Structure formats: structure tokens, C-alpha cells
């Protein structure tokens, strides 16, 4: 009996000798944003990687410091290599489980291979949450993260909170790491939001079309809205149009977009978009009331025309200029007509510009607010 206890005690010493992974929580640096820029293309140190992390001392009730976050950059050969380089400058080890945002610099986006490297590194890593937001920067990511501009403080980070949920507008489409890879797998193109600095504030608007891990175009906010409509991603939007000389403001509460792709002497795609909403603003005039059915119907028609024009213009640009199938026609084919898709997959780039795409819009003004 005594021997048994002795053996157990000796055995347990093995375990007490380590505690291999123990790092106290206040002794870690939680990186919240990562920015990647191009440095020297053909060399080892090809990237400049920037880490932004919050200042733990500035959080919570007993905040002792004021500066909300810190930024560190270094040239390096890969994103995680940067953490080793920066370990010479920081007191604690870096921890990547809470990274929320990845910003890719404009120059970097033009190099397909390098982007593929970056994305692979993030995809392979076990710690990075696959739902981090990927943003394209106009200019250098380092500059964007470094600018010491006044901004509201949120715990998750300002950029993340702005980007993550475009519930309030469709000026940009947020994209996660998984979404990006998935889109590029299915249709070869994807759309990521764009971040710029204007008037000393961050600005996330419009987007960047990437084809095969390389940027091919910037698109602006209106185009983004059109694409979001087609992709059924609009949650809340306001459409302003001119009706009989007055501005009509219409708030969207719900949209539904259906697409049907037919193979019928060539590929034809039909998008039907239904928009529901209410009248937000008209004009306060005794003679002009919005509470009559004909008026509402006319307003609807005006809006439909305007939005359809926008959408068709964007589709035209996508088809002819960019040759980018962001609206998911190829993906649809691969899922619902797999045999056809296998035949035309190789030459999709040539076929896509010539597809007939029809858009039918149906806007309904359900309510007019509190007044007539």
C-alpha cells in the first residue's frame, strides 16, 4: 500500500513539471486587427504586417490609461512570422484567437500569388476565427490602421463594428474569410468592402471585385447596392427618387430576390426582386397627399424604373467590363444543373458576357408612416 502511494506520487511529478500551455490572460496581447501590405515583391520580406491590439488598461471601470489601442508594424515573410519579429518589441506573446478584421493593402491585392499565400495562411491556422472580416484598403493598410483619428470606442474595435453587420445600409457588402474562399471556389470572383480615410474618419464604402485572388476593379456605393439587391443581401436601405418634381424617400424593410437560370438556346437568367417598405418622406403640402392608391402606384413605378436602370447599368458593367460573375449565375448552375455546368465551366469567362440577364422589380409601398 505504501509502495503504491509512492509510485502514484512519483508519477504525478511528471505532470507537475510542466503546465506547458499556461499563460495568464493579462499577459497576452490580443490582436484585434491585422493589416497586410506589399513590401518587396520578389524577396523574402514580401509583406508589411501591421497588428492592432487594444489597450487592456483602458478597458473597464478602472481604466487607468487613455490610449485605446496600439499599433505595431514590421516587414516580414508571412503573417505569423511577424509575431516573432515583433516579439522583440512587445512584452507579451501575441494571441490571435480574437482577430476580427483583416485589411489588405491596394498594392497587395494586385499580386495574385501573394494574396493566395496570405489567405492560405489564415485558412490553415487553427486559431483564427474563420469569420473574420476581410476589407480592401485604398492605399496602404498600415496607414489606415495607424491614423490616430478620433473615433468612437467600441470593445470589438471600431472597424469591426462598422463592417460586420450591414444592417443599416447596403453601401458595402461585408465578406468573411470563409465566404471569400467559398466564392472564389465556386465562381472565381468575390466582393469585399473598401475602407478609406476621408475627412479624418474611417469610411467603409463600396467594394473591390476580386477575381482569382486578384483585384480587378473598385466599385462604388450605388453599384454595390445594386449587386446586393441581386444577391438578396439588402436588409435596410432608403431609395430616394424624384416624383413629379418632389423628392420621395422610401425606406426598404424587406427584399426578396429570386434567380432562375434557364438553358434555352443559350443561358438566360431571370432575376425577380420584390421590395417591401414604407414611405419615409414626401412633402408637407395640403394639395399633395400620398394616401391615395394611384399616387402610391405611380411612386412605385418611378422608383422601379430608377432602380432597374441602376441595376441594369451595373450588370452591364459586370458582364462587359469586368467579366465578373458576382451575382452568382455560375454558382447557381453548378448546383442546379451540374451536368451543363461541367460542360461550360472551362469557358465561363467567354460565355458570361453574353448571357441574357433580365431583371424584374416589384416595389411595394405598404405604409405611409403616421401621416397622410
Amino acid at each position: 500500500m505504501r509502495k503504491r502511494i509512492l509510485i502514484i506520487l512519483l508519477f504525478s511529478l511528471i505532470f507537475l513539471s510542466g503546465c506547458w500551455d499556461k499563460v495568464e490572460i493579462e499577459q497576452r496581447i490580443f490582436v484585434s486587427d491585422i493589416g497586410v501590405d506589399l513590401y518587396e515583391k520578389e524577396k523574402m520580406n514580401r509583406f508589411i504586417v501591421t497588428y492592432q491590439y487594444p489597450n487592456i488598461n483602458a478597458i473597464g471601470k478602472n481604466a487607468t490609461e487613455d490610449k485605446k489601442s496600439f499599433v505595431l508594424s514590421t516587414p516580414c515573410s508571412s503573417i505569423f512570422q511577424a509575431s516573432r519579429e515583433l516579439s522583440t518589441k512587445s512584452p507579451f506573446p501575441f494571441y490571435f484567437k480574437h482577430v476580427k478584421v483583416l485589411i489588405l493593402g491596394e498594392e497587395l491585392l494586385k499580386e495574385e500569388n501573394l494574396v493566395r499565400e496570405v489567405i492560405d495562411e489564415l485558412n490553415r491556422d487553427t486559431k483564427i476565427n474563420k469569420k473574420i472580416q476581410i476589407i480592401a484598403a485604398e492605399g496602404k493598410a498600415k496607414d489606415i490602421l495607424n491614423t490616430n483619428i478620433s473615433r468612437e470606442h467600441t470593445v470589438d474595435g471600431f472597424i469591426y463594428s462598422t463592417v460586420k453587420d450591414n444592417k443599416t445600409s447596403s453601401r458595402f457588402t461585408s465578406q468573411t474569410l470563409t465566404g471569400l474562399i467559398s466564392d472564389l471556389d465556386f465562381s472565381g470572383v468575390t466582393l469585399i468592402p473598401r475602407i478609406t480615410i476621408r475627412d479624418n474618419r474611417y469610411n467603409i464604402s463600396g467594394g473591390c471585385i476580386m477575381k482569382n485572388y486578384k483585384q480587378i476593379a473598385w466599385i462604388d456605393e450605388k453599384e454595390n447596392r445594386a449587386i446586393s439587391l441581386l444577391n438578396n443581401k439588402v436588409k435596410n436601405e432608403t431609395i430616394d427618387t424624384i416624383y413629379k418634381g418632389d423628392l420621395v424617400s422610401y425606406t426598404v424593410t424587406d427584399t426578396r430576390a429570386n434567380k432562375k437560370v434557364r438553358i434555352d438556346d443559350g443561358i438566360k437568367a431571370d432575376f425577380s426582386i420584390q421590395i417591401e417598405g414604407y414611405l419615409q418622406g414626401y412633402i408637407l403640402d395640403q394639395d399633395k397627399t400620398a394616401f391615395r392608391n394611384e399616387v402610391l402606384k405611380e411612386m412605385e413605378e418611378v422608383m422601379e424604373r430608377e432602380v432597374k436602370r441602376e441595376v441594369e447599368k451595373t450588370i452591364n458593367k459586370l458582364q462587359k467590363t469586368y467579366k465578373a460573375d458576382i451575382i452568382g449565375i455560375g454558382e447557381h448552375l453548378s448546383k442546379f444543373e451540374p451536368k451543363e455546368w461541367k460542360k461550360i465551366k472551362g469557358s465561363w469567362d467567354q460565355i458570361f458576357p453574353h448571357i441574357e440577364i433580365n431583371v424584374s422589380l416589384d416595389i411595394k409601398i405598404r405604409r405611409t408612416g403616421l401621416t397622410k
Partner: protein
Amino acid sequence: MQNKNTISNQQIKALLVTTVIGVGVLSLPSDLAMILNNSGWIAIIIGGLLILPFIIIMDRLFKLYPGKTFFQIGRKVMHPIAFNIILIIILSYSILLLSYASRIFAEVIKVYLLETTPTEVIILTMLIAISYIARSKLEVVARVAVMIYPIILGFIIFLIVINLPNADYTNIYPLLDIEYKEIPRGIMAVIFSYAGYEILLLALPFSENNENSLRYCMRGILMVIGVYLIVFFITLSQYGVHQLKREIWPSIAVIKEVDLPGYFLENLDGIVMAAWVMVVYGTMGPFLHASGVILGDIFNVKFHELFVPPLIPIIYSISLIPDNLIESDRIMGRILNYFALISIIIIPTIIFILAYIKRRKDKA
């Protein structure tokens, strides 16, 4: 009073489900997606249905000789030395499976939970914990299975509920684009995931209600098929077929796709890991117990507890043989597939045929 060392049918069903759902479920969706793309679910269903006849065979075997354990029947219908050789084959299969499972388990834990802890420590601690359950009698093993069973089910339901808001169901299509040539390969990939039901050879003789055991076993297998299907579809809808082919352990990694900070559901790795440890425990425990019992029978000793501690160093060293993950998959995985085929399909069938013939001879 429960002195008779019997286990109820509920416990048999739980034992079956928890032993079968083990290490195979981790990479199942991605292996199937690589071979069959979106129609991997067919291989799951066919594989499951394929093993049903063998369960029926096992049940019939024990009905031929009611009251006798597998070892007693084996010694009766075959020459004892031949039977010992068969037992040694089953034993090696069992040990190999345990080593493979420990290695994969340790790799997963290292990736998700403890990066720098040495693999040896993880494997060793797991083996010690498992030896505790392996040294108990069969009843206790069945009871632990019943306790783990709702955790597995609850976890699957949790997976479904969490993935509902975010999943893109169109990723499941095309559903029926089947390449018939690839189905046999798909089934080979699935077979290992269904291994584990041979625990019935040990458990069925002790069932307290022989008549209904078969029904419960069927229900158990149907439940396993259901679980695998759900895991497959969920991972498919979250990843899309291309990314699914890239993932090594999609069943666990899928939880990383869930990010609902507004609902306080972020970074749910911890829950998955906790459930995963229980799942592996539920698989390896009965296997180590069975190994102990087999050894006990070979040496004709009543108490299988003695043989469990010596097995631990053997399993430990075998599990450390492969250098990396790919090797362990290739070498051990492939050998295991063949071993599984022999042990769980061929051997019971042989014994059954011999027993049947002997019965005929005895009757005549």
C-alpha cells in the same frame, strides 16, 4: 436485485451508439466529399445498411447457444488453438484501433486546446483515464455509455440549432449527381466509421431480454446513420463542397464558422472539445475493456482487470510510431480498414457458420 451482471437493452443500444461514433466521425465528411462530392450521403446510408446483416448474424449466433458467451461458443465450435489465433487477430485489431484513436485524439487536442503540451502527455493521461473504466465489469461500461449517450445527442442538436441561421442550404445541391463508379470507394472510406459494433459480441450474451435485443441494435445503427448524415449535411452546408474537401477535421472545425456575437455565441470550440473528449472516451473505453477480456480469456483467467495495465505501454508506443498525421492516416488507417473488414465482418460470419453447422450436426 442486480447481482446477475445483465445489462438492459437500452444500455446495449447506448453502448452500440457511443462505441461506433468515435474517431471516424471527424474526417468523415471531408473523406466522402473528396470521393463523392455532394452525394457522399449515399455512401453513409449504404454503409450503414450493409452492416445490418452482420448484426443479425451476431444476434442469431447468440440465440443458437443461449446463455453462452462468445468465447464459450468459439471454443465449442472450433479447435481451441484455432480460436485462440482468431482471438489474437481480434486483439491486435483492437490494440491498433486504440493506438490510432489515441494518436488522432492527441493531435486534435493539440491543435485546438493545448499547443505546446507534449503529445506523450496527452496520450498517457487519456490512457490512464480509460484504464479506470476498462477495469470495471461490463455493466459499468454500459452504464457509462448510457450517461454519455445523451451528451452526444445533445451536442448534435446543439450543432443543428447553432448552424441554422448561418448555413447556406444551397450548398447541399446538387444532391443527386452521383458517380456510380465511385460508390465502392466511398463505402470503403465509411466502413471504418461504422467499426465498433463488434462490441456486441461481448455485450449481447448478457442482455436481460434476448428477444428484443435485435430491435434495439437496429435502432442504434439507425441512430448512428442519422448522426453521420446530419454531420455531413451540416458541414456541407457551412463550407460548400470545395472547402469541405480541404478541411481535415470538418466535424469539429465547423463550430468555428459560428459567430453570433450578439447572442454571446462566439468561439464555441470549448464546448465541442468537451463533447469530443466524451465521445472518444465512449469509444476507447469499451475497446480497452474488450481487449482486457480477450486477454483474460486467452490465458483463462477470470479477472480481466489484470491485463489492462500491461496493455497501456503497448498502445502508447504504437500510437507514437507514425511521424506525422499523414503517415498515421495512411499506415494505420489503411491497415485498420483491412483489419476491420476481417474482424468485424469475416470472423463473426465464420463463427456463425461453424456454429450453425455444429448445431445441425448435434441435432441430427
